[in-house]
């Protein structure tokens, strides 16, 4: 049961009890008042009864007094007493109208009273008349009526006594009823007070319990509030600390970012400077190459030219040895010319812009081989061309690669009875590795690393001509494509050159982008 229900129940009960007490008290009071009324009524009856008795006694007394004196004064008093007795009897009749037993008694009383009064009057009047007329017999007449009068007086007194007794009895009964009602009322009041006190105590107990409960709850709440405030404070502190740390981090980041920006800026400046420097170097290199190609070749040409003129036009005048020396001069000059040409090629390849396209390696090899098929150099060569893939590469540079590798293969198979030069692709790798294989003189694998260096030769010049720049050029082209090159060989059992041309997908992607750009333009 909740606190409110308990309290409401207790209060309702108290209110009901109080109301009941009010009703009961009111009823009691009304009843007491009514009983009192009846008590007063009884007193009035008794009073009138007494008045009747007194008047009758007075009448008796007066009548005797009159009989002795015949005083007219007494006669007047007698009338008063008589009227008083009749009035009292009349009052009694109306007062006890509700009481049957008293009415019966009064009914008995009334004729007796009338007779008695008549007798009394008769006794008085006769002597008085006699007296007035001088009649001497009058007292005797009065005395003649005395016994009846006495009997009537006795009866009347008796009836009055009875009425008195009856009223006394009624008064007693009513007093008892009042006492009873008062007792009952006190009992009710006591019960009501007790109940009210009990309920008040119950209410107080309920309230006290509730107040204690509330106080406990409030206490708990205060504790909880304090702990909550404490926690909030702690959390706030934590947050403040975290915030400060975060701020510090942000500051650090910003600082780092500024640093990075500064570094970037300085880096960009440095890159620009380097680019400018590099551009200058490239320009210088260009002009150097120009100088080499133009100025350095000129004196060579002159040496060669004049040597030949000397030989052809003045040969007859020279000794055999002098002519032999002249030929040596011409040979040396020609070799130097080739060296310069090859070096220029190498440098030009290094500077040339790489333009990747989809290239049919098959077609390119077929074209390169075609140059040799009918030439004296390519005589007797069995050309084996396997199916070759398409590649993303610079076609001009790939042609230079194949030209050099074919020239090499042709050179080192020269003089063999059966010359085989094979072109193929290994599809074991992705992108595919291309290879050129010959059955020529081959080389010692321990010198394989020297193969691709400029001016590196593994064979004597007298056996195989060459400047030693061809393979360096090939390697440079392959490296510029992001690929790699290696050679396998054993002396006397031919050589195989394997090379790749870098990631193909990127090239394809770049080409696609390029196509898109073109379509866009």
């Amino acid at each position, binding site marked *: 049961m909740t606190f409110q229900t308990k309290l409401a129940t207790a209060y309702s009960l108290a209110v009901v009890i109080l109301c009941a007490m009010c009703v009961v008290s009111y009823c009691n009071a009304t009843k007491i008042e009514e009983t009192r009324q009846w008590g007063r009524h009884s007193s009035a009856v008794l009073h009138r009864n007494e008045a009747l008795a007194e008047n009758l006694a007075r009448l008796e007394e007066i009548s005797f007094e009159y009989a002795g004196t015949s005083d007219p004064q007494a006669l007047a008093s007698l009338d008063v007493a008589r009227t008083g007795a009749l009035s009292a009897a009349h009052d009694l009749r109306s007062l006890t109208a509700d009481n049957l037993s008293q009415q019966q008694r009064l009914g008995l009383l009334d004729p007796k009273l009338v007779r008695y009064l008549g007798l009394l009057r008769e006794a008085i009047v006769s002597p008085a008349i006699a007296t007035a007329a001088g009649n001497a017999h009058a007292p005797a007449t009065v005395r003649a009526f005395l016994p009846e009068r006495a009997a009537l007086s006795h009866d009347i007194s008796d009836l009055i006594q009875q009425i008195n007794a009856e009223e006394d009895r009624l008064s007693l009964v009513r007093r008892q009823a009042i006492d009873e009602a008062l007792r009952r009322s006190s009992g009710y009041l006591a019960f009501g007070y007790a109940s009210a006190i009990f309920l008040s105590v119950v209410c107080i107990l309920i309230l006290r319990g509730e107040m204690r409960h509330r106080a406990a709850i409030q206490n708990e709440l205060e504790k909880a509030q304090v702990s909550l405030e404490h926690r909030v404070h702690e959390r706030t502190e934590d947050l403040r600390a975290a915030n400060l740390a975060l701020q510090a981090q942000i500051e650090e980041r910003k600082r780092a970012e500024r640093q990075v920006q500064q570094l970037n800026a300085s880096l960009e400046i440095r890159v620009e400077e380097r680019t400018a420097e590099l551009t200058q170097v490239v320009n210088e290199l260009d002009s150097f190459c*120009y100088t080499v190609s133009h100025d350095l070749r*000129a*004196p060579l040409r002159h040496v060669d*030219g004049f040597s030949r*003129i000397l030989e052809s036009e003045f040969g007859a005048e020279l000794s055999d040895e002098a002519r032999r020396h002249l030929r040596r001069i011409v040979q040396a000059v020609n070799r130097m010319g080739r060296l310069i040409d090859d070096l220029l090629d190498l440098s030009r390849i290094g500077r040339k812009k790489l333009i990747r396209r989809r290239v049919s390696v098959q077609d390119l090899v077929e074209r390169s081989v075609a140059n040799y098929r009918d030439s004296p150099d390519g005589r007797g060569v069995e050309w084996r061309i396997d199916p070759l893939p398409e590649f993303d590469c610079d076609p001009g540079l790939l042609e230079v690669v194949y030209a050099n590798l074919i020239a090499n293969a042709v050179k080192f198979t020269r003089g063999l009875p059966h010359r085989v030069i094979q072109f193929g692709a290994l599809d074991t790798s992705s992108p595919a590795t291309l290879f050129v294989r010959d059955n020529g003189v081959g080389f010692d694998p321990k010198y394989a690393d020297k193969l691709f260096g400029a001016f590196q030769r593994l064979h004597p010049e007298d056996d195989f001509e060459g400047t030693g720049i061809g393979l360096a050029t090939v390697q440079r082209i392959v490296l510029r494509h992001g690929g790699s090159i290696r050679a396998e060989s054993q002396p006397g059992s031919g050589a195989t050159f394997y090379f790749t041309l870098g990631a193909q997908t990127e090239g394809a992607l770049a080409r696609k982008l390029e196509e898109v750009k073109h379509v866009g333009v």
Partner: protein
Amino acid sequence: MSESDPVEILLVEDNPADAELALHALRKSKVANHILHLHDGAEALDFMFCRGEYANRACENRPAIILLDLKLPKVDGLQVLQELKSDPRTRAIPVILLTSSQEEHDMATGYQNGVNSYIQKPVNFAEFQDVVNKLGVYWLVVNRKPPAVAFLEA
């Protein structure tokens, strides 16, 4: 052969050794009687436009071909070529660049400026002699010279 003979080949070459070799080769090829050798671009332009030192020469006598080196003092070969090819009096004369440069750039500029032939001098003199022979035969024998009306202003 005398100085008054009309010039058949004009050789513009500053390097005396190169000039001597070229003249030697040209003479050996026997395609021309009168070869004039000039040493720089300014002189070549004076000769062609009959001014300065050459103000009094017979200007209607034009060389059949001009052999021009690229690197020349004062006015360089490409500039000489530009001036010759931009003037109606000289535009029709075949100009052959005879140079040791094998730079793509030089070649491209030469052709863009209307050169008629671009020949790289081989180091080997025998090859050079062969080239000069072919050159002489082609331009002076096989090829028909431009008619006089080709030099009138349009």
